């Protein structure tokens, strides 16, 4: 689906045309657009200017799904474009010029200029994350990187990563790699994930040695298991629509066995730290090169298993100690990663993950299948084109149609609620460095980027709330509800109240680093209806229900703007600001905001 400008030709009938096109399957798109078929490779003529601007509500809703939150300017710009064009432009936008690695290295250099033994810590990565996600224009790339960071999970909770300045550089480099590969091919992404030293450390296969001759010592199985369960295939064989395949007895079919894991684990032996002149010492972590945490791991043939390896229906033939080389290791790794990336489960597995991250926790099987088909073939015979996949996720009729039913949508992630606030209301960083550290406490947000409790992320895609809940009673998935409890709901509302009122982040002289002056909101603060209109536009994508609206308006109007001869401008300003704070606090605490539909 690279033919991005096509739907603009049909703008007046957009929604209806998209629905029929997408339901019929994306391969039909080129023909439906008059492009003449043939896989969508032809360039259509430049479309005429759109006759009708897109509505602000539908644009804001799209940006809620596709970015870290709508902004005034973003909404207006997209109203003159189309979702397809926006996606095309976002895919083309390069990674940030100032990478996370560059940011944390600059922080380290600055600290060491004052004190040569100074170090950086996980907060330095978090600061950089807030800066990029809130301020970068290439928002879809940012959202993809964040989604990947919850699929290809590493965590700064692991002190083997976060315990050193080089480990922080490594984590930043890992996230940069995810950002760089936001729209690349899944197979490329999988290989770069596999060879990144931060993954090697996190899933413990860095410096993993081959089995011993006696058969008592075995290779570490950690990565072999988790790369299959969490990053590619999943436990059970899937249909293209993401439903579980069943055998003749009606039971799920295991996608791989313990034997597959043990055999695949042998592929991931003999891989360790980069060094220009590798030795047994550098394999084991001695004589570390300063860049070993930010450069791909390398092959150490003397530690690699030369046994035959059979898994997922492929067999890597046995070699001998003498014939294992860096080249044969690279060849064998290619065979292994091809076997993973070409497994038929990957399309519905990744489709489901991304739909849940961006759009809805319980997609219909048909939605999953439409996206999975694009994973399998982007229309030009390419498998794993992630740019095409996210386009399919966001332009699907199920994502774009008006939400209906009581199970569509998802709980917004806690950190995304905060980016929504920061972007909607133009928050800025006084220091320029976005000094928001860990928000992991369940009395804060219960979530910090790249700091999940384990490789199983902050929540599981299959999490179903307790049977006593409405969702649980219906057997519905709600991943983000895995961290919802009596403490965390209170923690979020309290944290938000303070962030809205005074800001959030490291405080200087009692003033938090990241805060908003709410200029645009203060300007309309005297008019409660106009103020709440802004809330509706920016955080409710025009879907603010009447009952909630009335409550917010009444709360705002309960704060009078003082008048009279003795009233000072400061008193008037304070009242206006209190009206704005009230509108935002009530909005961002409401279920109408928390649940993205």
């Amino acid at each position, binding site marked *: 689906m690279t033919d991005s400008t096509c739907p603009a030709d049909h703008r007046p009938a957009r929604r209806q045309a998209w629905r029929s096109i997408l339901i019929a399957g994306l391969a039909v798109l080129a023909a439906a657009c008059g492009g003449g078929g043939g896989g969508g490779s032809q360039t259509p003529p430049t479309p005429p200017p759109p006759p009708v601007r897109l509505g602000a509500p539908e644009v804001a809703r799209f940006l809620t799904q596709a970015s870290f939150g709508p902004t005034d300017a973003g909404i207006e710009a997209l109203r003159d474009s189309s979702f397809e064009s926006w996606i095309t432009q976002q895919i083309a936008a390069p990674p940030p010029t100032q990478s996370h690695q560059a940011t944390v290295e600059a922080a380290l250099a600055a600290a060491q200029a004052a004190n040569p033994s100074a170090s950086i810590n996980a907060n330095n990565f978090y600061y950089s994350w807030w800066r990029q996600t809130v301020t970068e224009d290439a928002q879809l790339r940012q959202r993809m990187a964040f989604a990947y960071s919850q699929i290809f999970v590493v965590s700064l909770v692991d002190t083997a990563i976060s315990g050193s300045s080089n480990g922080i550089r490594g984590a930043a480099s890992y996230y940069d790699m995810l950002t760089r590969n936001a729209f690349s091919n899944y197979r490329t992404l999988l290989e770069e994930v596999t060879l990144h030293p931060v993954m090697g450390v996190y899933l*413990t296969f860095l410096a993993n040695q081959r089995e011993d001759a006696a058969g*008592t010592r075995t290779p570490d199985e950690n990565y072999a*298991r988790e790369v299959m369960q969490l990053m590619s295939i999943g436990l059970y064989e899937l249909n293209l629509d993401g439903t579980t395949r069943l055998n003749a007895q009606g039971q799920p079919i295991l996608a791989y066995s313990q034997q597959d894991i043990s055999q695949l684990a042998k592929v991931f032996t003999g891989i360790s730290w980069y060094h220009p002149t590798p030795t047994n010492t550098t394999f084991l972590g001695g004589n570390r090169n300063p860049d070993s945490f930010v450069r791909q791991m390398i092959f150490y043939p003397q530690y690699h298993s030369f046994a035959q390896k059979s898994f997922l229906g492929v067999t890597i033939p046995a070699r001998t100690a003498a014939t294992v080389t860096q080249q044969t290791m690279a060849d064998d790794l290619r065979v292994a990663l091809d076997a993973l990336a070409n497994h038929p489960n990957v399309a519905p597995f990744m489709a489901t993950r991304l739909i849940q991250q961006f759009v809805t926790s319980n997609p219909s099987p048909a939605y999953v299948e439409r996206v999975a088909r694009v994973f399998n073939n982007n229309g030009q015979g390419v498998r794993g084109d992630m740019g095409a996949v996210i386009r399919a996720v966001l332009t699907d009729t199920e994502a774009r149609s008006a939400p209906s039913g009581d199970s569509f949508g998802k709980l917004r992630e806690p950190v995304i609620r905060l980016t929504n606030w920061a972007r909607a209301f133009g928050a800025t960083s006084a220091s320029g460095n976005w000094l928001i550290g860990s928000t992991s406490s369940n009395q804060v947000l219960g979530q910090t980027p790249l700091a999940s409790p384990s490789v199983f992320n902050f929540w599981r895609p299959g999490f179903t709330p307790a049977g006593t809940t409405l969702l649980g009673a219906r*057997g519905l998935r709600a991943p983000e509800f895995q961290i919802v409890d009596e403490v965390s709901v209170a923690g979020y509302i*309290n944290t938000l109240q303070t962030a809205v009122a005074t800001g959030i982040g490291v405080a200087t002289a009692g003033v938090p680093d990241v805060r908003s002056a709410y200029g645009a909101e203060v300007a309309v603060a005297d008019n409660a209806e106009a103020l709440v209109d802004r809330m509706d536009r920016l955080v409710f994508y025009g879907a603010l229900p009447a009952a909630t609206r009335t409550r*917010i308006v009444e709360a705002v109007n309960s704060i009078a703007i003082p008048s009279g001869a003795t009233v000072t401008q400061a008193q008037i300003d304070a009242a206006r600001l209190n009206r704005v704070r009230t509108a935002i606090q009530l909005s961002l605490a409401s279920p109408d905001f928390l649940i993205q539909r």
Partner: protein
Amino acid sequence: MGFDKASRRHFLKTAGALSMFGAATPLAMQLATLGSASAQAASDYRALVCLFMFGGNDSHNMLLATDSDSWGRYWSARNTGSDPIALMPVGTAPVTPGQVAPLTGRTVNNDSPERFGGVLPVNSVIPNAIPVGTNAATRTFALHPVLAPLVPIWQAGRLGALANVGPLIVPTSKAQYQARSVPLPASLMSHNDQQSIWQASAAEGARRGWGGLIADTMLSQNGANSVFTGVSVAGNQVFLAGQNAVQYQMTTNAQPAVRINPATGTTLNTSSLAVTRMREIIRDNAHVSLFGQDHAAFVRRSMDVADTLNQAFSSTLATSVAAPPANVNPVTGATENNALATQLQTVARMIALNSVLGLRRQVFFVSIGGWDTHDFQNQNQTVLLGRVAHAMAYFDSVLANLGGADMRNRVTTFTMSDFSRTFTTNGDGTDHAWGAHHFVMGGAVRGQNVWGQYPTLGVDQGTFRNPDADRNITIPTTSVDQFGATLGRWFGVADAQLDQIFPNLRNFASRDLGFML
């Protein structure tokens, strides 16, 4: 052990009257009303405390068989690799870091097993049978050396172990496992699924756990405060979700409930109406989506009981519970916080308040993570086991005198984990496996015993065949259902209900493993 029916009726009547006051009633008034019920509750209170070790504890290094045949196989499997994980035999003297250990010839590091000396012998008053494949006259046992704080509790009879327990649907032999000829638990060796199966008898997506289903049977005994029947101090866990029972989440703060400030203060941004409207908005359960309705339900529960709980925690019964003593990291030597002990302090405070809150049955969940020791096992597991020992010994001591009452007979603490780990090493750690050994602690435990069947150790080699292991994975001989049902029966759950709660219990010969008095 059964309830006195007359006194229960009386209690329920009193508690029912109490509930009319609602959460806003001053605590002092509730206490005055509760007078007689309090005394009753105190005389018949029981709690189960689940201590979950997330990540999969390598219990091969927690409870060890020390007969020479078992030890020999253990030693050959684990005294190898780049950082050998074999513990030292009974009686081995500790070796100072930097010195060469006489037994292994290796220079000792801060986290080397040699540093901590030999494993600590513990006896089993009831002899554990010798399994097929083990060549020994008697089975002798020992604990990891950093578990020293638990040895006196073991010897006092308040601590025992259950050997080789794990998820099973039916009794499963090695041949049956290898041939897949009997139904097996789903997704063996997968972290999240095995955590879920241990807690809820089903893989990821489970909606009800056996702690919650046990709590269901006891809700009516807890009167107006039945929301506190299942309490987690360690995040959302399916273990405590029942048909009706909910998991209630607390912090470890002195005031354990978190108030929602903008919805409970007198003003918000100078307006009292804004507080009212905030409260209405966040509690609005008429949302178009189930997600919104469920979120509002959490908010309502959070708000409705926060003040009751925090007021109760202000009483001296709670505040007088001693804080955990200093915990020394056995590897670094540093004094450091032990979050598990802090969680158990909060649990102890809650238990101390049982009569104040009118509670007679509670199920608690505490946890400690980091057990997925694929590498650096010597360092990581040593520190973690040290924390478990420190926390459990603290909990035992504090329960001995809660507001003047010895509650140890009324509180049973048990460990769970995803799975145990491979018998063999991968060089400096271990991988995912299945059957595991676990602790059960309390005055009602028939301690100083190893219950269940401690398995034959070793990997098939030459003519040796281990009937209890497939390659390096131990196959459980006792099921989680049996483990839970034994605890449930002590808690007062009726036999028929146990069959509902533990779906596979009827597949096993023994419904009560005997480790509870």
